[in-house]
């Protein structure tokens, strides 16, 4: 009784989703009479991916026991996470040193926007209901996708768990409880329900509460005689968080297609623990966030040659920031809205040649209670034309994206109309049939628009800003082989070398005092890099399976903005020359053991590569042990995890100390 009530409640909530989903539902209803065997849920047509992305999914993702998406992304090569520390701390991702604003983050296929500052806080996205995380350099090399998917320098796709039922199953329920250091209390629930043969519903809810406290240490020694200078322990405070996440979705299948609708709600209150500077370890700033979106997606192969896809989204984001310091009281509220509509078409000209055309429209609006605020609105139209050829051992793809942007403001000056045409080319070739080695390369030129903050932030913004461009050249080899009956069952090696340029980089430059800045298109950065990823699966004993995964990244990202600067040619801030990760996971009967290691090499925390800006390398080891047991069809999984095993005290971002050794315990119950 209660379940059915809940179910109808779920329906009612989901009924509010855009029209597309309703149409889709009707369609699937009308085809219900047909033979079930005709229903095929398949990946979109259009051939294999030319440049497959880096992926973490399923059991491998689960074994990491990461708290957020950002924590899991650290195991990808070519990226750097800027982590301000703690459970509620901001975590952003920088792909191949081009800057955090150049990373597009897609949630179940539709991009998460933040027109205000262009940054998606990946620390907010839970891994609790995540099926897979994929990172694509350049873009996902598909031609049947929305125009927006062509619009970033690097893209991260987050895919939540889709309901999948075995014969005879009607319902899945999973309850998880996490606790441990930082006063963490984190219960969550996942409920999947089979509604009909073609429609399934999913609901996920999570509450995260933590006081965020942890011990940190700052210690300095004399370089010559190693004599101890200062050595202090302190407690990181004001890092508490209280957050709710609710997500509901409907998934449907139809003949040669599928549809889905989802709503997402996130509400949080968090402390901002701030910078740890001399004589000031206590901060009182607070932030409240409320994020809501509803999105729908519909895809169908209309005829053997023609496929069609619709996507739509509405998003509302609210941020309330409070700095109740008596010295400088600040309280601001920001309200963002986004409407997004997309249609994508794919036409198979011949068996090996496909053409895609997609058109997107997006509207963004930002309101704020700042004085002299501009109240900007942005209207973006994107059209992407793409084509791909695909043979047995050779495939290629080319795309052209046209972006038109109009802005309106109530006050001050609006940014002028912008139109940009940007290309991308991807090729992949397996030279020898018998050797599973593939060569792949891509070229891409794309830009990011200045954010609303860059353009309009009162007294800081500069509405004359031009877009910031990146140009990427990448070439690499992949080798994937499986062996039967051997100890080494599977091996995969991917290596890429790349050269990127960031031009017209938007940087903050001083106004007339250090408390007043403005934004300018000034920076010029050249990036050379190597990414290596090695993956292997081993069958050591009869029941002992071990999987290993290692990544290594070399990056040289140098600032060539102004010859007269003392730091001309220096490595840009926070980009280490060397970084890498290692995961070793073993499964023996009911036991899982996972060891993970992350290394970030030496780097500088400001533009000049001088001793005063030097930041030490850091590396952490995490260890997790899990035990799974099934009693009466109910599966219990108990995990104990130690993070930062060696208790290393480090900063990812200078003056934002990270926690030392910490613990987590997880109990998951599947019914």
């Amino acid at each position, binding site marked *: 009784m209660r379940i059915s009530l809940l179910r109808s409640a779920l329906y009612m909530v989901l009924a509010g989703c855009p029209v597309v989903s309703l149409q889709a539902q009707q369609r699937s209803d009308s085809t219900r009479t047909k033979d079930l065997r005709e229903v095929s849920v398949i990946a979109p047509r259009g051939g294999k991916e030319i440049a497959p992305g880096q992926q973490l999914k399923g059991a491998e993702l689960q074994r990491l026991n990461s708290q957020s998406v950002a924590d899991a992304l650290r195991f990808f090569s070519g990226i750097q996470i800027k982590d301000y520390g703690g459970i509620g701390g901001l975590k952003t991702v920088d792909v191949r040193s081009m800057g955090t604003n150049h990373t597009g983050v897609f949630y179940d296929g539709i991009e998460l926007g933040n027109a205000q500052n262009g940054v998606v806080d990946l620390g907010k996205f839970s891994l609790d209901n995540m099926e897979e995380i994929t990172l694509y350099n350049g873009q996902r090399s598909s031609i049947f996708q929305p125009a927006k998917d062509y619009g970033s320098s690097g893209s991260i796709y987050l895919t939540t768990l889709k309901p999948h039922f075995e014969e005879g199953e009607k319902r899945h329920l999973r309850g998880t409880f996490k606790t441990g250091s930082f006063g963490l209390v984190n219960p969550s629930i996942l409920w999947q329900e089979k509604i009909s043969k073609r429609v399934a519903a999913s609901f996920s809810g999570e509450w995260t509460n933590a006081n965020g406290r942890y011990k940190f240490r700052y210690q300095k020694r004399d370089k*010559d005689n190693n004599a101890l200078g200062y050595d202090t322990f302190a407690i990181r405070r004001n890092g508490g968080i209280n957050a709710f996440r609710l997500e509901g979705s409907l998934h449907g299948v139809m003949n040669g297609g599928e549809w889905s609708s989802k709503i997402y709600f996130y509400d949080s209150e968090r402390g901002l623990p701030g910078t740890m500077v001399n*004589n000031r370890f206590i901060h009182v700033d607070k932030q409240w966030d409320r994020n809501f979106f509803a999105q729908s997606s519909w895809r169908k192969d209309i005829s053997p040659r023609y496929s069609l896809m619709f996507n739509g989204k509405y998003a509302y984001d609210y941020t309330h920031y409070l700095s109740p310091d008596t*010295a400088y009281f600040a309280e601001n509220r920001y309200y963002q809205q986004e409407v997004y509509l997309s249609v994508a078409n794919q036409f198979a000209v011949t068996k090996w040649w496909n053409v895609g055309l997609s058109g997107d429209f997006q509207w963004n609006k930002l309101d704020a209670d700042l004085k002299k605020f501009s109240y900007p609105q942005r209207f973006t139209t994107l059209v992407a034309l793409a084509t791909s050829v695909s043979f047995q051992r050779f495939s290629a793809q080319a795309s052209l994206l046209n972006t038109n942007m109009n802005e309106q403001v109530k006050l001050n000056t609006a940014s002028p109309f912008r139109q940009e045409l940007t290309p991308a080319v991807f090729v992949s070739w397996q030279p020898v049939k018998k050797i599973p080695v593939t060569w792949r390369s891509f070229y891409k030129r794309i830009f990011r628009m200045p954010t609303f903050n860059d353009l309009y932030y009162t007294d800081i913004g500069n509405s004359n800003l031009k877009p910031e461009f990146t140009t990427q050249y990448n070439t690499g080899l992949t080798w994937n082989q499986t062996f039967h009956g051997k100890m080494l069952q599977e091996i995969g090696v991917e290596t890429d070398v790349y050269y990127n340029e960031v031009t017209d980089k938007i940087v903050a430059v001083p*106004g007339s005092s250090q408390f007043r800045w403005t934004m300018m298109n000034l920076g010029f950065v050249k990036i050379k890099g190597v990414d290596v990823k090695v993956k292997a699966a081993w069958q050591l004993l009869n029941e002992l399976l071990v999987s290993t995964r290692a990544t290594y990244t070399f990056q040289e990202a140098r600032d060539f903005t102004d010859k007269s600067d003392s730091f001309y040619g220096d490595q840009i801030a926070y980009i280490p020359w060397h970084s890498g990760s290692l995961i070793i996971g073993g499964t023996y009967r009911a036991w899982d053991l996972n060891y993970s290691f992350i290394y970030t090499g030496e780097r500088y925390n400001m533009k000049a590569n001088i001793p005063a800006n030097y930041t030490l390398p850091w590396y952490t080891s995490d260890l997790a042990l899990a035990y799974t047991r099934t009693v009466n069809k109910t599966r219990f999984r108990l995990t104990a995890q130690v993070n930062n095993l060696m208790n290393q005290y480090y900063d990812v971002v200078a003056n934002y100390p990270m926690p030392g050794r910490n613990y987590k315990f997880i109990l998951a119950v599947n019914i």
Partner: protein
Amino acid sequence: MIKQLRFIRIVAVLIMLAMAGCRNGDYIVPPVTTPVDTPVTHQRYKGFYLLNEGNMGSNKCTLDFFDFTSGTYSKNIYATVNPNVVKELGDVGNDIKIYGSKLYAVINVSNKIEVMEAATAKRLQQIELTNCRYMAFANGKAYISSYAGPVVIDPRSPLGIVAEVDTATLQITRRVEVGYQPEEMAVIGNKLYVANSGGYRPPDYDSTVSVIDLTTFKEIKKIHVDINLHRLKADSDGDLYVTSRGDYYNRPSALYVLDTKTDEVKKRFAIAASNLCIAGDTAYLYGSEYSYNTASWKINYGMVNVKTETLLPGNFITDGTEKNIKMPYGIMVDPETKDIYVTDARDYVSPGTLYCFDKTGKKRWSVITGDIPAHFVFLPAKQ
């Protein structure tokens, strides 16, 4: 089986390496000493300290010292002299002065005044004061302006205060409420003059100079000058040179002369003045005026004769070096040699440059400093 054991051994070694991999300690950044000049014989001063502000949040406020007797410039001396001070000098240095045998540095975001031995920069003590800005000294007392007043009815706009500190005990003895976000101060006779900016309240800037009676430590009047006041320097005739930063849009920066006998504005120079230094009868000034209307800034250099109160023609830099200065940020003139020191804060997030010009405006030398070089104080030869 042997193969399997070998694999396990390799993994074990890898893990051991990963765990044991030792990293070097976090070292105190040692000073960088550069010979920049031939030794100069100086009657009055042994050298000068330069306080680098450091960008907000970076904790990179540093102290440099130039030694006249050796002609060497030492960058970042504080951390090595005081290795036990947690997180070094602090975040955003805002003023530096010597009074008696003590060196005082106002560290704005660290909410403190660092008190050191003038001769060595060795730390003696710190005085806690929230959002402290500038200092003035008289009769054994330090006067320190602070943006943070007591919490009033409207917490959005607390009035600023000036705190009085006894330089013998280093304790705050009295406080007085002044205008909004008070900046520089000067003592003339028994009166303290405070420039109020209202910098946290645009567009409702403050526009007054507060006058404090030092006996009662009460504000006795406010002199209306112009919006967003900042610098306040006294000449030898009891006149005050006060700068207005303008509103960065339509109201320009300007320089005012206040007569402290009448407590009235007696002259306005329509010249952008971000900072100035009075040596003898001349005020050396520069302006770096930013305009949000054009998203650009204008930089100018100039001189004012403080006896005749007239603008002097020309620039005190005569060899074209000003073209290399991206963002002038500090200025000081040696009263003895008339050498002119100008700092360049460049982009505020990288090391700046200190330029030394002779009295004819020709560059003598330059040296790389800490981030945002800004505030100078001469170290007397005899104390």
